[in-house]
């Protein structure tokens, strides 16, 4: 098995190759506005580092978010296109699950990423491998009573540490495709079916239905 993992749902642009046993190569860059520019060169670099070509890949896993829309789609469309050309399966995984897995925590905790607009994407976990709730998007103040004192992981928790008072500063702040790949490899090996690679937007598109046209005749 050679698993290619991509995630562009958060400010991190991250790519990894995993052979089913361990991560062969990984790239992590944090730049919220250059997902489109950074992803393909990162794929190229990771493959070169592992001394492999893209056509050796047997499975693709992509972080499906939740994430601010524009960057999120870069990873999804790249994964879908690779999958179509290589004729290999493309799996999705919740991006928060990658962060949860990377934390290695064995007690209940929450993962939160920055959703911008003063909101976070977040979910609750029983342990590093077990998510308890569907991811959602909320204002930190509105979930304060649910997360106060609970161990918390991720850039969203760090950003609003007056609400996420149990934030674990030693846990990884940003997504790692290596962790996402390791989690996917573990699930695939266990015969688990991974979700489809469909975006988790969690917000409706911003679109105003225009009111009836503005009258132009001066009163």
């Amino acid at each position, binding site marked *: 098995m050679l698993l290619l993992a991509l995630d562009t749902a958060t400010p991190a642009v991250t790519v990894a190759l995993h052979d089913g046993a361990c991560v062969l190569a990984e790239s992590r860059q944090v730049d919220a506005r250059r*997902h*489109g*520019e*950074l*992803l*393909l*060169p990162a*794929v*190229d670099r990771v493959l070169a580092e592992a001394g492999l070509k*893209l*056509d050796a890949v047997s499975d693709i896993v992509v972080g499906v978010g939740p994430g601010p*829309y*524009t960057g999120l*789609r*870069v990873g*999804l*469309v*790249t994964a*879908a*296109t*690779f*999958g*179509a*050309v*290589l004729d290999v399966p493309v799996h999705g995984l919740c991006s928060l699950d990658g962060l949860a897995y990377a934390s290695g925590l064995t007690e209940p905790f929450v993962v939160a990423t920055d959703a911008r607009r003063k909101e976070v994407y977040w979910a609750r976990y029983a342990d590093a491998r077990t998510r308890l709730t569907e991811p959602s998007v909320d204002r930190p103040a509105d979930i304060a009573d649910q997360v106060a004192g609970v161990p918390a992981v991720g850039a969203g928790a760090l950003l609003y540490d007056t609400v996420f008072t149990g934030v674990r500063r030693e846990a990884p702040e940003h997504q790692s495709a290596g962790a996402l790949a390791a989690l996917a490899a573990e699930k695939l090996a266990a015969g688990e079916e991974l979700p489809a690679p469909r*975006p988790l*937007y969690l917000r409706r*598109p*911003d*679109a*105003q*239905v*225009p009111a009836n*046209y503005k*009258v*132009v*005749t001066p009163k």
Partner: protein
Amino acid sequence: MADSRGGPLVLGIETSCDETGVGIVRGHTLLADAVASSVDEHARFGGVVPEVASRAHLEAMVPTIQRALKDAGIAASDLDGIAVTAGPGLAGALLVGVSAAKAYAYALGKPLYGVNHLASHICVDQLEHGALPEPTMALLVSGGHSSLLLAPDITADVRPLGSTIDDAAGEAFDKIARVLNLGFPGGPVIDRYAREGNPDAIRFPRGLTGPRDPVYDFSFSGLKTAVARWIEAKRAAGEEVPVADVSASFQEAVVDVLTRKAVRACKDNGVDHLMIGGGVAANSRLRAMAERRCEDAGITLRVPRPKLCTDNGAMVAALGAEMVARNRPASDWDLSADSSLPVTEPHVPGEASGAAAPHHHGHDHVHEVSKHNLYS
């Protein structure tokens, strides 16, 4: 190698607005033109909603590529290159196409060509009428653009002569359709009503046609206001609005200015061909008036069939094929989606190519390009 088969085989991807387009061409020959449109999802908003368009592009991208390959009956491994609209357009929408094109080209081991949307609108005519004359004068009119462009070399030298200073022509159609409660998009429905109406019934203003106005620029905002005011006055007086006459007279005002300025641009620059592209080029009155005025002025008119005038992937493939044919350098893997890519950049060559100067052409019919008259 490519030429022995009739030109380079190129797949083009277009996602600058609400159409997910994938086209395949071999040189000047159209092999496939697959389009998935999200226009219906925007109708109730009265205009294209960028996030709705971007979401639809993601859904449609791979299926549209596969449909184009099937229609063309070619194997992806035979392609000589992948072209994609790098800009201008809606940033989030462009990014889906650019990301897909990169992944596609990388996975196939083919060169990637990020190209300009406006230059593609011009180059598509090669699929209809053969090689573009050099220079080509082009009038591009759509919901997003209204420009007069002079293209001595569509792969390397495109010069803006004029453009709209406010609304695009297609936007004016959409707005008047909204005032008349005819729905979105406005172009086709106004064209239909106008056929039943009298274009001389109401004399609406012709924007920027005064003696001291910029010769090649357009303005449709004043016209739009004048038409809306006229309709409101009718309604206020309790009279029925003559939809057909208003449509015909409004359309006449738009088309009159577009064709007058385009023919003037040809004459001033000594160009004997006029190409018209963009969604509004599907307008029947624009075609008819351009035909008459060009004939009167001894200008050969080239307008592609309507499906090639609206946004599509074939136009991107057509320009990509020209880039390959003329040995233009490919783009890099870090190619950006550039929502305001200037029209003066027909493509986005890679850094390493050292091809910043577009005048080092490989082809031999180099023009002495004067500022005024390209044929004199």
